[in-house]
């Protein structure tokens, strides 16, 4: 399953929503509440192996499927460098 699909499945099953676009803001459209955001972060950390720093907890990284995909791509691309 690619990243996008994996995220969509997680969001649908965790927050019980079916119809939403990849651009839609989770917070503004009420898909996820502020406490649910922490749940999403825990999922990214456990299932994608990224450690999300406090300064990264911003809508540009987390607040839509598109933003999440882009964030994960950046982090995955950066990982070898960081490890090296």
């Amino acid at each position, binding site marked *: 399953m690619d990243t996008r699909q994996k995220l969509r499945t997680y969001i649908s099953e965790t927050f019980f929503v079916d119809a939403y676009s990849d651009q839609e803001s989770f*917070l503004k459209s009420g898909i996820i*509440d502020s406490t649910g955001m922490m749940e999403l972060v825990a999922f990214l950390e456990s299932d994608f192996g990224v450690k999300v720093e406090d300064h990264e*907890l911003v809508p540009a990284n987390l607040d839509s499927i598109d933003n999440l995909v882009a964030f994960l791509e950046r982090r995955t691309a950066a990982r070898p460098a960081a490890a090296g």
Partner: protein
Amino acid sequence: MCGIAGFTLPAGTPPEERLARFGPRLRRMTASLHHRGPDEQRGLVLDGAAFGHTRLSILDLSGGSQPMRDPATGLTVVFNGEIFNYLELRERLAAQGYPFRTRSDTEVILASFLARGIDCVQDFVGQFAFALFDPRDGLLWMARDRTGIHPLYYALTAEGLCFASEAKAIFASGWLQPRLDPAGLKQTVHLWSPLAPRTSFEGVQQLPAAHVARFDGARLQSRRYWDIDLSPENVDADLRLGEAVDRLGAALGDAVRLRLRADVPVAAYLSGGLDSSLICALAQEQLGGTLGTFSVSFAQARYDEGEYQHEVAAALRTAHRSVRIEDREIGALLPAVVRHAEQVLLRSAPAPFLQLSRLVRSAGIKVVLTGEGSDEIFWGYDLYKETAVRRFWARQPGSPHRPRLFQRLYPYLQLSRQSPEMLRQFFGLGLEEPDAFDFSHRIRWTNSGRVSRFFSADFAERTRDCDPAAAVRDSLPPRVLSWPALPRAQYLEMQTLLSGYLLSAQGDRMMMANSVEGRFPFLDHRVMELAARMPPGLKLRVLDEKHVLKRFAAARVPARVLQRPKIPYRAPIAEALTGPDAPAWAKELLDRAAVDAVGVFDGARVGKLVEKLAARRAEPSEADNMAVIAAATTQLLSRELTGPPADPPRAHLDAVQLHAEAR
């Protein structure tokens, strides 16, 4: 005190026939309210109406029996509650010539009505729900106190009108098949309660707070007799803090004094917060050291306020008792909670209150003072601060700094970990409409409304046209729409959460389940009206809530209580309803087939939610907590109240003493 029930019946039937035809119905209704009045149960079948009463004796223990009749006119009353200024009213009415036969406040209602009709409610400092039958014109009157402390339900039946303190008594009449009301349920998951006059049940209405109603045999007409005026024109702009503190002290002191009137001991609830601590301090001062206090504490540390409760009790030297509650007990208590509350819940917080009233009753106490109402009238809730910050931000929506203020609110929500940009997404909801009537409540209502995601497709379709926020808007008096955001927030808060949930599901019902009466000094209308006249800055001073109240409390409650961060009263939900320790009823009722059979929620979705919460992978979110308890309590409501009504226990039926009057 007490439970009331009754109905109208065709006039002109002889007493024996009346008793035979309508007695059994009245007996069942009255017996179903036994818990509200275990001391005495009586019913009276009149020519035109039948009244039943279950009594919790608090005033005039020997002379206050009900239903009570005025011998001269036949005017008859059943009454639940207290008229706290009955001694003053009694003196005045006696001077005008009314021949009082008892020392009860019940008789004061009869005399007051005879003196000035239903407008007599204007004279009452009290909390009440009552019905009057006037044989002179055959009219039935109903009245409910200003904030809805005491409940009053009614239904129109084939024979006329039927009323009672609880819906279960209306079902016990046999006139009505109990069925859940879809619109009432949808309103509850958005607003936390059905919006009066709507209830959770089809065909059953409630008289809204501050209303009187008149039934003439065919038509019911109700009207509001009191309202809070929060308009800027009503504010005394010159009122300074010192003077406001003095006036508040006098009003609240008198409110407590009147509420200590009883022929049995009066104790108090102590949560460890400012409001209840202050009430306890004032009561202890007036009682000269004999106050008993009661608290509930939680095994789970994040919910527990035990430390503060003990500190206040020690400082005030009260005789303190507390009961500790475990997660699994909350699950075990919920069926009884729902049976009494008669509505769907989004929080488990009423359950500890049921445990608390049990403790009070086991200590032999029937009356407690409690601190509800202060957060509404002095703007204590975070909702007011949130609204103030949102208004401030809406004036410069582009400001990067203004949303940072949200980090100062909700310290318990881990928001400090989240960036201002994130907060902005969340708290920015509706920011572009700062004048919308629900600006203050839109975030809360949107959050709780997420529960509707779990509705079954069929139920969602059936309630598609029901818009809970629009129903609130339509219920508002037009002038409220022109008030500033904070007074409007208070009005909405009092109409929805206070009256519909805090005073009922979490208030009266949880106390009366164990035959305990609560009294609410902050909801004395003189205190509410004083607070309404105070300049906004005395209530919410920048972001310091209940400013004037804290000043008044400073010399009376421990400093630590004044300085502590405000923590909302909460109780565990997901931990109590899911996982290996979940109660058997939850496993059974949240099962897919069981959920689908009731038809409100979608069985498969609820099943997934329960699985997710049972796995305990993460701290349960607000949305999930609300959804799982809404589903669980909907299932309970259906099981406990909409099945074929079980007959009240034989002993309760037999205990009702029935009489018929000749006229």
